[in-house]
Each structure stands twice: as C-alpha cells, then as structure tokens.
C-alpha cells in the first residue's frame, strides 16, 4: 500500500541523512523522557499507594455522628439555640450492619468486605502499659481487604478467642514474641490475658505500635459492642474509582462513608498534583518534538522544491506529494518512538537501581506496561502527522511550473 509515497518518503529521509538522524534523535529523547517520567511516576505512585493502602481499606462505612435534635412543639416556631454543645461521639455499632454488609458485598465494584470493631484500650505486661487500639477482625475477609496476612513477619494470622496479633514495635516495647502472654484492657472491660499469635510489620512505625488485632467476637465483648460492628471495611476493584463508589454509597445509606482519598487527603492531593505536573511536562515535551519535526520538514520542503516540481510535472498529484510528506512525519514519529521506548526503558531500569526510598529500598518498581509503549507509539504517530501537516500542505501547493525553474 502507498508504494509510491513510501518509496519517496523513505528515499527523501535517507537522502537527508544528517537531518533525519538529528530529528529522529530529538524525537527519541522526547519519547524516552515521556516514557521515563510516566514509568517512574506510575511506579512511585503505585508503590506509595500500595504502602499506604496496604494497611487501609479503600472505603470505610461507619455509623453517622450523633447530633443534637431539638424538640419541636406544635404551634411553636422552631427553636434556635444561641449555642449548642456538640454531643460526645461514643463508640457505637452500625445499625443493622449485617443487612448493610450483605447489600454492599453484592455490589459488583466491591471485591471484599469485612466488619470490624475497634476502640481504645491498653496492653499491659509486667510494669509496662501501652495505649493501643483494639481491633476485632475476622482474619480471612479482613486480609482480603487490607492484606494483613502478607504483613505477618513471625507467627501466623490465627485468631482464637484469646489470641492477639501485635506489631513489631509494640512487641519490642513489651519485650514479647510469638507465644508470650499479654494483658488487654479497655475502659469497658477489666480485660483478659491474650496469647501473641503473630507479629506484623505494616511498614509504618506508628501503626506497628498502635493496632492490636483480636478475634471479632472477642473484640465485640471487650469493647462492649456485643454483636456489633463499628465499621465495615471495603476493598474495591479500581482504587481510583473509590471516590465515585463512595458517592454512590452515600445515596444508598445514611451511614458515614469515607473513601481512602478522603482519609488520606494530603497524599491524594500530592499524587493528583504530581500527575498534573507530569502531564504538563509531557505535553510540552511532545509539543517541542512536534515543532522540531515541523521545522526539519519545512526546511526539507524548501530543499526539495525542484524535485517536488519535477514529480508534479511528470504526473504526481497534490495528494501524492501531501502524503509523501505526511508519511515522513509519521515515519520520524514512529522511529523516534521505537528508539525512545528503548532508551526510556533503559533509563527506568537505571533509575530503579539508583533512586532509593528513605528506608534504602528501591524508590519504585519498574512497571513496564504494554499500554505505555502503545500510547507512546500512538502519540508519536499522531504528533508526527500533525507536525508534518504544515510542511506537507506547503509542498502540495507548490506551483510545478515555478518549482522546476528554481
């Protein structure tokens, strides 16, 4: 297909070897930069998100805050209080949580759902007492939501009625390890002795000190929420759809629904801003590349005026000439994308070795998605074609009678 156009486009590019090499080189650098920036950003963000969300559900459903309800009497205008003292929020269960859990679990976006109870408590061992958060969980579904099972470093995620799982920092503070006994106490229960069944590391020192996991029923008992659930923790398929799903759930229930974006607003804003900034940088790189291609082709049209005139005189149509130059733009774009993809991949591999996170581990994992390369290829092709439009039209509109006399 397009043998004539292809033959001429390739020959013209080959004839202007130096120009072609330079512009393909320039395009490659641009594409590699785009690939590198996108790859690193995706990697770093994915890593950050998985580190953060590894310990958090994507969506949490909690009972609504308790508010003051002024009493109304018939015939009186509504009472307006000058000041109203907000009510203290006690630990409560979600009303009828089993029904709500069943309904939510049936939604197609929801991949896992688990009820939990959590509240303040103390852990005591000998002379030491530490303030902690007691979390009552059902280990299997809970792991599907937060991947706690992957974070167990010693022992196992088994929770019999008097078992507990604690974090590495707390274990260190208390000087305990798997098999040792600790004493858990809450404001509502004098507490019991628990056997440490497992020790987890969530990659966050504060979390490793704070959360003590117990069996759901045990948690309900010691937090005085018999049969209750203080929250429903949900994992969804697409974490970036969490906000939309959350909004939909709010329509559906009176309970308080929060997505991970809301819980981690700082992180989420930082990520979005980072994405916007990268998008701007990428757009500018693409525009610079396009301008480069345009200028090289404009020069080429001027240099090839006479040849274009001959071709037109011996029977090439305006369309033929237009396609010859558009094709040159496309070829430069594709060649640049192929070279750029290779260089960009190399840069990424290098970056993942050299760039380190605070804890010394690699800052990001290289995520080589075929979509990224396909995208780069498509963008380069489209920009190559767009960049060639002006020179191609100029070439096609050359007056052959004048061009051959140049």
């Amino acid at each position, binding site marked *: 297909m397009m043998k004539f156009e292809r*033959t001429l486009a390739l020959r*013209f590019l*080959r004839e202007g070897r130096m120009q072609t090499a330079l512009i393909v080189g320039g395009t490659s650098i641009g594409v590699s930069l785009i690939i590198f920036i996108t790859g690193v950003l995706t990697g770093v963000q994915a890593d950050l998100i998985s580190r953060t969300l590894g310990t958090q559900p994507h969506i949490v459903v909690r009972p609504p805050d308790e508010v003051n309800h002024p009493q109304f009497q018939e015939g009186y205008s509504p009472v307006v209080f000058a000041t109203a003292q907000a009510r203290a929020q006690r630990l409560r269960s979600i009303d009828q949580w089993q029904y709500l859990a069943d309904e939510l679990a049936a939604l197609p976006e929801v991949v896992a759902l688990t009820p939990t109870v959590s509240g303040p408590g103390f852990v005591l061992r000998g002379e030491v007492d530490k303030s902690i958060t007691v979390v009552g969980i059902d280990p299997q579904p809970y792991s599907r939501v937060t991947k706690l099972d992957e974070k167990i470093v010693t022992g196992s995620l088994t929770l019999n009625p008097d078992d507990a799982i604690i974090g590495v920092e707390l274990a260190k503070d208390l000087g305990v390890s798997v098999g040792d006994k600790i004493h858990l106490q809450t404001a509502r229960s004098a507490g019991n002795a628990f056997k440490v069944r497992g020790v987890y590391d969530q990659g966050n020192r504060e979390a490793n000190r704070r959360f003590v996991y117990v069996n759901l029923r045990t948690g309900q008992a010691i937090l005085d929420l018999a049969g209750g659930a203080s929250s429903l923790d949900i994992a969804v398929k697409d974490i970036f759809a969490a906000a939309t799903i959350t909004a939909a759930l709010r329509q559906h229930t009176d309970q308080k629904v929060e997505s991970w974006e809301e819980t981690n607003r700082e992180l989420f804003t930082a990520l979005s801003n980072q994405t916007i900034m990268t998008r701007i940088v990428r757009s500018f790189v693409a525009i610079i590349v396009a301008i480069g291609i345009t200028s090289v082709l404009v020069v080429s049209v001027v240099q090839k005026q006479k040849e274009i005139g001959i*071709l037109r*005189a011996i029977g090439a149509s305006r369309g033929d000439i237009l396609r010859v130059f558009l094709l040159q733009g496309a070829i430069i774009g594709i060649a640049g994308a192929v070279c750029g993809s290779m260089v960009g991949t190399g840069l990424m591999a290098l970056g993942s070795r050299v760039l380190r996170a605070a804890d010394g581990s690699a800052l990001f994992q290289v995520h080589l998605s075929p979509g990224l390369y396909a995208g780069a290829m498509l963008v380069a092709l489209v920009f190559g074609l767009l960049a060639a439009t002006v020179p191609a039209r100029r070439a096609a509109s050359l007056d052959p009678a004048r061009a051959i006399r140049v």
Partner: protein
Amino acid sequence: MMAPPIITLEGIRKTYNEGTPIAQEVLHGVSFTISEGEFTALIGPSGSGKSTLLNILGLLEPASSGSYHLNGQEVAQASEDQRTRARLSTLGFIFQFHHLLPAFTAVENVLMPGLMRDREYTPARRAEALALLEAVGLAHAASKKSTALSGGMQQRVAIARSLILTPKIVLADEPTGNLDTQTADDIFALLRRFNKERGTAFLIVTHDPRLAERCDRKIRLVDGVIAEDLHGSVP
C-alpha cells in the same frame, strides 16, 4: 490521409497578473494543431512566450482564455486533478536541466512515472525501463545514482523517463540547451529515432536554428503570436 490531432489550440491567450495595474498579456491568441507522430520545433527569441506556451501545453499552468483540446478532450478549464491525470497519461516531459531525482538511480528515475500510475514496481514496467535505457545507450548505468551521470547521460535518462508510459506527445524544453554540440546532436538523433520507431510526437522548444531546421515543422513565436508555421525539414 491526415493523422488525427493530439493538440489543438484555438485563440490561447495568457495574461499574467490579470486584473492588476501590472497585467501583461504574453500570448495574444495562439492557434495551431499538432497531429500524431509530428516532430515539431517551437522557436522564437527570448521573451516571445515559448516557455509560457509550453507550460500551458504541459498543463502546468492554465490559459487565460481560448480552448485547448488534448487528445480530443477540452482541458483549458480542467480541474487540477484532471490536469494531473492528463499529464501522466498523455504527456511526456523533458526539461532543459535534465531534472532527474538525485535520490534515485537511473532506472528508478525512468520508472518514476510508472510507479505513479501503477502504484508499485511491476516486472513488466521494469523490463520496459531497462529496454528504454538500453535504447538510449545507458544499459550499463541503470543502477547508478543519477548524480553520478554526465549531463548528456542524464538527459538520455530523462528521455527514457519521458517515454516510459508511451505518451502520445513529448514536450521538450530546450533538451540540448546546455550540452556540447556533439552530445546535442546525439540527443537530437535519439529523439528523432523514437519519433520514427514509436510514432511518438515531439514538440521541441529550441534556440538552436541548426536543430530546428532538422524538424518536420517549425513554429516561430514572436511577441506572443505565431509569426511563422513552416512544414518540411531540411534533409
């Protein structure tokens, strides 16, 4: 019996910068007919309108008024597309400065009009191109870059190119203009040979009275009008 006409011009006028104060009419109603197989010289002093007339005949620029029948079709007011198609199917071109494509070899240059029409290199067309190169005595230079050829050789390649699609008529703009006498004679002889062997008509613009004398017909253009139209060549 008269051979059928290929080109019929009637009252062709050409004005440059029409409708402006600097408008200038360079052709003032030119009429003539060229029949199949004719070997015609178009002569005249510089500025007489030869190049303009050749451009109009070659459909490279339109006439301001008058009618132009090419191979039985009125083309004076034809669209850009129709004119391009007519150039490819009916006309061959030879330019003064050879005008080969420097990025291509001799045989590729000869094949170029074929590639435009067929949209691919066909074996038959390639064989035809090689035969033409052989006919112009350049079989050995077929795969040489056109820039590596001498002026005379380049012009012979251009002749081969003008004939590849077996046009009815070849328009030649001073084909021997910048060649030495011996080479010019060779080139002229070649054109003559193709005219005899293949029946292709030639319209040759030339300054060289010696060559013009050897054509079957001489059309002399002076100040945009035909001053003389003589049939019969000096043997």
